């Protein structure tokens, strides 16, 4: 039994005042402090983003982080505005988890059913690429984060359900209204075009018009290609760069490029 006190608690039993009284005083201080209000937030009844906790609960000394405020770039459940969705498929195309499927929503026009994204939150990684890609700003991400459910099928959110999220007016990412910054445009390789109208038919913004092209005179011995003598012209101010026309073109005559 050595007389020297060691700082690592070796002789804890030999120093009852030091090793019993001091921790008990610390615990009592903590008890008195948390009697008024503990640092925990009773989650289902209270929420971290409730502004009334901004001054009450300090997670870290100094400025409370994440308490009482919601960051505007929070990435939670999506909100979909079906009315402005143009069915451009860009969200499903940009999704790295392949969790977005374009499904038909019952619209007013039965002949031309509208397709809107349906999101499987069992696969979603909340990267936000879809809302970045959305040209109309109709698919954004909100601050809702409660997704737990006992059934896997309920993890798949239909467009109508996403539209309800939109209607609930949650704080959401600022809707980006400006067009993509790249100067890429849809260009046409005229000799390949057959004038089939597929691009104009499928363009979500109806910015493609088929214009007549002059039918060249056939020289003797030359056989004119069998085609419709029309060519697509893209209205660049209306185009949202979704690329639908490129993917539907049967002759691969449309491509991305920058016009001089």
């Amino acid at each position, binding site marked *: 039994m050595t007389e020297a006190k060691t700082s690592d*608690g070796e002789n*804890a*039993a030999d120093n*009852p005042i030091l*090793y*019993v009284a001091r*921790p*008990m005083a*610390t*615990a*009592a201080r*903590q*008890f008195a*402090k*948390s*009697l008024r209000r*503990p*640092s*925990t937030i*009773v989650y*289902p009844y209270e929420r971290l983003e409730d502004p009334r906790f901004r001054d009450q609960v300090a997670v870290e000394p100094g400025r409370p982080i994440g308490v009482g405020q919601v960051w505007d770039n929070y990435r939670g459940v999506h909100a979909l505005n079906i009315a402005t969705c143009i069915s451009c498929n860009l969200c499903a195309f940009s999704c790295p988890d392949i969790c977005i499927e374009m499904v038909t929503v019952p619209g007013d026009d039965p002949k031309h059913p509208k397709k809107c994204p349906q999101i499987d939150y069992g696969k979603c990684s909340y990267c936000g690429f879809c809302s970045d890609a959305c040209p109309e700003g109709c698919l954004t991400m909100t601050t809702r984060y409660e997704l737990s459910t006992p059934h896997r099928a309920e993890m798949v959110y239909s467009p109508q359900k996403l539209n309800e999220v939109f209607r609930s007016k949650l704080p959401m990412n600022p809707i980006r209204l400006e067009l993509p910054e790249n100067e890429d445009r849809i260009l046409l390789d005229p000799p390949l075009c057959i004038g089939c109208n597929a691009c104009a038919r499928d363009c979500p913004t109806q910015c493609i018009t088929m214009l007549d092209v002059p039918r060249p005179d056939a020289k003797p011995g030359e056989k004119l290609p069998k085609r419709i003598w029309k060519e697509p012209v893209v209205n660049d101010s209306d185009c949202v760069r979704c690329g639908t026309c490129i993917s539907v073109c049967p002759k691969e005559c449309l491509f991305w490029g920058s016009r001089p």
Partner: protein
Amino acid sequence: MSSATLYSVSYALAALILNVIGFIIPPIRAPITNVDVVTVLAVLIFGALLLAASMLNTILLIWWERKLLGRFMDRRGAMHVGFAGLLQNFADGFKLFRKNTFQPAEADTLGFYSGPTAYMVTSMILFGILPISSGWNSGSLPLSLLLALAIFSFAPLFIFVSAWSSNNKYSLMGGMRSAAQMIAYEVPILLAVVSVVILSGSFSLTTIVYEQQNYWFWGPLVVALIVFVAAMLAEMERIPFDLPEAEAELVEGWNTEYGGMLFAFFMLADYLRALVGSILVVLLFLGGWTLPTWVPSAATSFPLAGILWFMLKTYLVFGLFVWVRASLPRVRTDQLLRVGWNRMIPLALLSVFLAAALVTVRCVPVFGCVPSAGA
């Protein structure tokens, strides 16, 4: 002080029940409202009331510990079930009750099932001995303190039997350590109690309480109180002396192999013993259900005042145990034994000498005269 006692209440209940039955079925009214029948039923109701009160208090004690420990750790305890989580422990109990009991292969069936049962039953018997308030006990036994401590020290035997019959060598080791610890700390507990007995001159808990009319015994016997509380912590296997059990490290130690209702028996018995420990501290050192004489008599004159003050003191003493649990780290085995043999027993002996000196002098300068320093 109220004039109603536990027995009178149960007798009235029994008479009421039998008279109602007799009113509904008139032919049997005369035989069943006989005094002997009412007395037998009153005794049964007496036991049932004691059992219900002890179980209810045990479960409330678990709730009290969870809430207090939560505040010590800067959180809230159970919050969801019932008001402020009051019903959470009932829900936990029902969950354990519904579970299958699982018996390990080649475990000794008799020991495996009788160990936890006897552990809990011996803990519940204690509530028939401890007086709660004046009249609220099962008769003032002249040696009730001795009987209570004797039953209290049955526990190592049953723990050892349960651990041994689990057919698990680690459970057996844990049971051995638990039994060794409990037996080692019996000595300072008894020595601390001896000083109280010397000062009060009685082994009856009721008499000990009434001997504290002038001053509570924790004043002159503060050393004995410290020894008693520390040794009681070791007896209850609570932190910082919970090394046989060590929830996080040893997967519950000696009751590893127990699940379902048998585990609930251990859990309940642990808290029953914690409640008994708190009650003993209140009875021996804190004046039981009495209040100091300078307190206005209005505080003790309303009905059931004794029980109220007694339970208040008991829960505060248990709060002290929780405070210790929230503060101190677990000790090692060598530290445990060193504290037990090198510190506790000398301190308890010192307290015994102090009590003997007080009885000899008969008057304490600060606290006044010893009321009836007989013995």
